[in-house]
């Protein structure tokens, strides 16, 4: 099998996890860091080789990119027809994801050598990074939806471990719990969706499931329930899992809190890889969505559009640098979801699909760069808040320039990567519905505004008094920044329409000046506004904020979504459901159990005398035991 080696892309980080996890405390911290870094480095090389071999070699047959099973083993067999496999499925999106994950993960591994140096639990950190990389890689190459679910949960666990890395900090512990519970709640929908989906289609396998001519799509819509087919319901439930991991409204509340984790973790998990798992999930099942459940796709589009606007508005009001980036991530993932939601299947109809994957790719580059840059800044000034920063451009030139490139990329200024992918999304939205286009158009302006608000606030503005003069980060941190900056500047030129498309066939795109020019225009407008407000520092923003009054406060308090959750869980669920159940559990269930335990104990105490230590008595019991057996059985036999 020519792609057999791809299994090692996932397994090597796992081995690194085992080594650093089991023996990490015995090595020098740096050694475990290097083991992890070298491991992911090899995996990165392998995935580049695989990508090259796939995209420019054997992947394409008669102009169509094939789904190739690189490796497969049967893991659990339930019955003649139903078995769960573990394996590697290679197709354009999984190969692309391999490249994204290993690249960003490698950058984060290198970066953390500097960022985490001297931290307690350095080896543990690298072990968790290895586990996460393994889980994420296993997720994207899954050959069937069950394997994906297993790795999906593993991703959740490793994210939990990494967010709660500073386990003696209560806020980190609370955040990790919140992330785990919220995503786990969403995964419940995912699981039910999987079961429904496999029930109507009779298969877990992605290749069978997503074959446009296959039985799953042509016959498997199932009966209707509440106006939608069972197929649609199952996909909506599956999307619920995706929405949880990808922080779509209203399951987004864990993402801002997850910023309690170490910053490199935020770059890896909460910017480039795990949070796009939901997008990947929808893309993986895209033929099923597009061909047999268009209503499901509609929901994806609405959720995406709403989240992108909602998060962008909040991002404009926040002060914590990482939280701004977190909301920006939500907003950008909303973009990707919207693009999937408005896309059709096959050829040029699949523009949205291509654009979504394209944006996923470019976003991974510049968002990882932003987070790592933020890490370098936090490292220098020991604070997360913009109000504690200002004028840093003089002290940190490399961070400054790379950060600026990332801001330009996310704002959509040509020729940086974000411009191209975002433009395709806007075109796709425009072709589907004007409303989607307008929303995304506004979001593009907001994005440019809040990113440059951040940029000016940190690097320009009034210089603050620092405890000790900020200095540039060490080379292990700046090199990943530079590499990612190059990626952010150039990846926009990759011809995605030739490589990653909904049906594997290349198509041509036309440049829409009528959309590109206004979108550049609004981005520049956003930047100019931010320049006017924040470059020198002015009191205009405060006045406007005061003018907006309640609206600003609502956005600042993240539209009170956390409070709504608190109210629903604490006041409604706890009081109306949990308390009565708890009472029943304590009084009735525990009561009967205690009763049984009490009786067991009494009987046990009563029998104690049988074990007297007297051999005569033992012999007596033995012989009488035989006799009783004999008598009772002979009696039974003769009746």
């Amino acid at each position, binding site marked *: 099998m020519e792609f057999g080696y791809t299994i090692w892309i996932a397994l090597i980080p796992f081995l690194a996890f085992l080594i650093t996890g089991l023996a990490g405390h015995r090595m020098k911290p740096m050694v475990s860091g290097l083991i992890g870094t070298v491991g992911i480095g090899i995996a990165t090389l392998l995935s580049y080789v695989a990508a090259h071999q796939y995209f420019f070699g054997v992947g394409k047959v008669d102009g169509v990119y094939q789904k190739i099973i690189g490796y497969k083993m049967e893991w659990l067999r339930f019955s003649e027809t139903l078995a769960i496999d573990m394996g590697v499925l290679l197709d354009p999106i999984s190969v692309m994801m391999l490249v994204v994950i290993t690249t960003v993960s490698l950058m984060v591994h290198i970066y953390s050598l500097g960022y985490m140096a001297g931290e307690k639990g350095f080896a543990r950190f690298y072990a968790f990074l290895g586990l996460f990389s393994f889980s994420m890689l296993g997720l994207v190459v899954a050959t069937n939806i069950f394997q994906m679910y297993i790795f999906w949960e593993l991703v959740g666990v490793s994210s939990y471990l990494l967010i709660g890395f500073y386990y003696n900090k209560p806020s980190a512990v609370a955040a990790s719990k919140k992330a785990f519970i919220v995503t786990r709640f969403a995964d419940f929908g995912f699981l039910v969706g999987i079961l429904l989906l496999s029930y109507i289609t009779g298969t877990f396998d992605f290749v069978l499931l997503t074959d446009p001519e296959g039985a799953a799509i042509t016959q498997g819509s199932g009966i209707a329930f509440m106006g939608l087919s069972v197929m649609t319901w199952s996909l909506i439930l599956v999307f619920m899992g995706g929405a949880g991991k990808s922080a779509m409204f209203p399951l987004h509340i864990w993402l801002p809190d997850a910023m309690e984790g170490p910053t490199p973790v935020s770059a890896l998990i909460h910017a480039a890889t795990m949070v796009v798992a939901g997008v990947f999930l929808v893309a993986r099942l895209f033929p099923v969505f597009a061909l047999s459940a268009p209503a499901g796709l509609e929901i994806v589009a609405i959720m995406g559009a709403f989240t992108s606007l909602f998060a962008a508005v909040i991002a404009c009001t926040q002060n914590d640098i990482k939280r701004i980036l977190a909301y920006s991530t939500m907003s950008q993932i909303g973009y990707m979801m919207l693009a999937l939601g408005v896309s059709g299947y096959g050829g040029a109809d699949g523009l949205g699909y291509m654009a979504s994957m394209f944006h996923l790719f470019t976003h991974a580059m510049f968002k990882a760069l932003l987070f790592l840059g933020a890490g370098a800044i936090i490292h220098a000034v020991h604070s997360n808040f913009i109000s504690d920063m200002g004028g840093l451009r003089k002290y940190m030139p490399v961070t400054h320039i790379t950060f600026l490139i990332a801001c330009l990329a996310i704002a959509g200024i040509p020729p940086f990567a974000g411009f191209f992918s975002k433009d395709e999304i806007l075109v796709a939205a425009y072709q589907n519905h004007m409303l989607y286009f307008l929303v995304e158009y506004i979001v593009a302006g907001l994005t440019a505004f809040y990113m440059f608000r951040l940029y000016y606030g940190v690097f320009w503005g009034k210089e603050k008094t620092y405890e000790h003069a900020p200095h540039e980060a060490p080379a292990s941190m700046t090199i990943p920044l530079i590499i990612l900056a190059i990626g952010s500047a150039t990846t926009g030129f990759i011809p995605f329409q030739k490589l990653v498309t909904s049906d594997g066939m290349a198509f041509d795109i036309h440049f829409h000046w009528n959309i590109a020019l206004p979108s550049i225009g609004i981005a520049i407008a956003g930047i100019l506004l931010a320049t006017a407000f924040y470059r020198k520092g002015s009191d205009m923003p405060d006045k406007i904020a005061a003018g907006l009054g309640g609206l600003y406060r609502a956005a600042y308090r993240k539209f009170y979504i956390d409070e709504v959750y608190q109210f629903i869980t604490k006041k409604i669920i706890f009081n109306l459901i949990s308390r009565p159940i708890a009472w029943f559990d304590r009084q009735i269930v525990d009561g009967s159990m205690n009763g049984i335990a009490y009786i067991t104990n009494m009987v046990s105490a009563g029998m104690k005398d049988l074990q007297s230590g007297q051999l005569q008595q033992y012999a007596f019991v*033995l*012989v009488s035991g*035989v006799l009783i057996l004999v008598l009772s059985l002979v009696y039974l036999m003769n009746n």
Partner: protein
Amino acid sequence: MNIESFLIMRHELMLTLAAVLMLIAELSFGKSEKSRIIPLAIFIFGAVTAVGFLPAPTGSLFGGMYQTSALIILMKNILNLGVFIVCLQSASWLKLPVNQDKGSEYFLLMISTLIGMNFMISAGDFLMFYLGLELATIPLTALAAYETYKMKSAESGIKLILSASLSSGITLFGISMIYGTTGSIYFNEVAPLITGDNLQVLGFLFFFTGLAFKISIVPFHLWTADVYEGAPVNITSYLSVVSKAAALFILIILMFTVFNALEVVATKVVYVTAILTMTVGNLFAIRQQNLKRFLAFSSIAQAGFIFLGVIGGPGLGITSVIYFILIYVFSNLGAFGVIAVISGKTGKENIPDYNGLYLTNPKLSLVMMLSLFSLAGIPPVAGFFGKFFLFAAAAQQGYYILVLIAVANAVISLYYYLLVVKAMFINKSEQPIEPIHSDGFARVGMVLCVLGMVVIGFASIIFDYIETLSRQL
């Protein structure tokens, strides 16, 4: 019959050779070199165990007195493995000054009982069976009384030999009744002549009693707790694992071959004793504070669970029994290994002594926890799968009520197993057991146990292999 046919008895011959080597070593090693017998013996026994896994010829010898098959060879290998682990765990205890001069004696006795068990499983007639049974029992009593300087050990030996002779007498009585009604002692000749008349039923029940005594089936179990508590830890683990396994092996072989015609009676007896054994074993185990006694009763309860497989009929039933025993060997020996190490260094054997053990001895606590989880049947440790198949075998035959009772008992057992885990991990202690460095042999033994508990559950190939062999019985 030529000289090569003796290779059919390869297991017994190798063990005999090992025993002779022990005698030679005892004679040729000087007083100061005595301690070197221990590694030598372990090495020899390891070699015997390893060679046992090589493919061996099968067939019968001595006009049908001795027989062997692939399934029987597997059983012997399981016993060998168990004894090997016990030997590993004994090393540090044997090095104590009080035992130092008697190392070869220990191994000689150990190997002798194992030879007896091998002959018992391989028996082709009742005479060979009985000889094997006695050869297995008598050295065991000597082992139980090995620590002659301890009153309890002597008491344990004397109690074992007296109860064992009583049960042997009953067994012989049963065998003579079967001989009386069929006119033969050869299994293959007796089998077609078993018709189920009252005398044969009586004979079977007496015969069954003898084996039930060995397996500690209620109400023939009373010797167990006293003997287990008094005997040295390693002998206790031997008694509770290897000797029990051997008796179970021959019981399932005979139940489904010679006494197949008495199925109606046999299932009734097994049904009743299974319930009694599980329940009584559990109820006593709850109250124990001494860990050896605790494991003694819990192993009684385990025997009751195993009877669910015995009642499960040929095929899945036999498979599940052998599979469970294989897992049980590793789980119980794992637990006993930890107890042996701790008792050897500190003399502490009570559950409250283990409070806070995790803080001082994390590795030992983890091995203990895994073993107890496996005994309790908590996934993903192998014990879960073992119990699952036992229950499945009984359910397949329609004994739902029995399975229900077994499940209830499994819950009770969970309670007391977790009690120990709680002591180790949650309870705090003013004077926890200080950090212990176990010797290399004991560590190897524990690693083997942990490997066994993890691997056997997941490697379905092992279960499949046992199943293919069982179908050939």
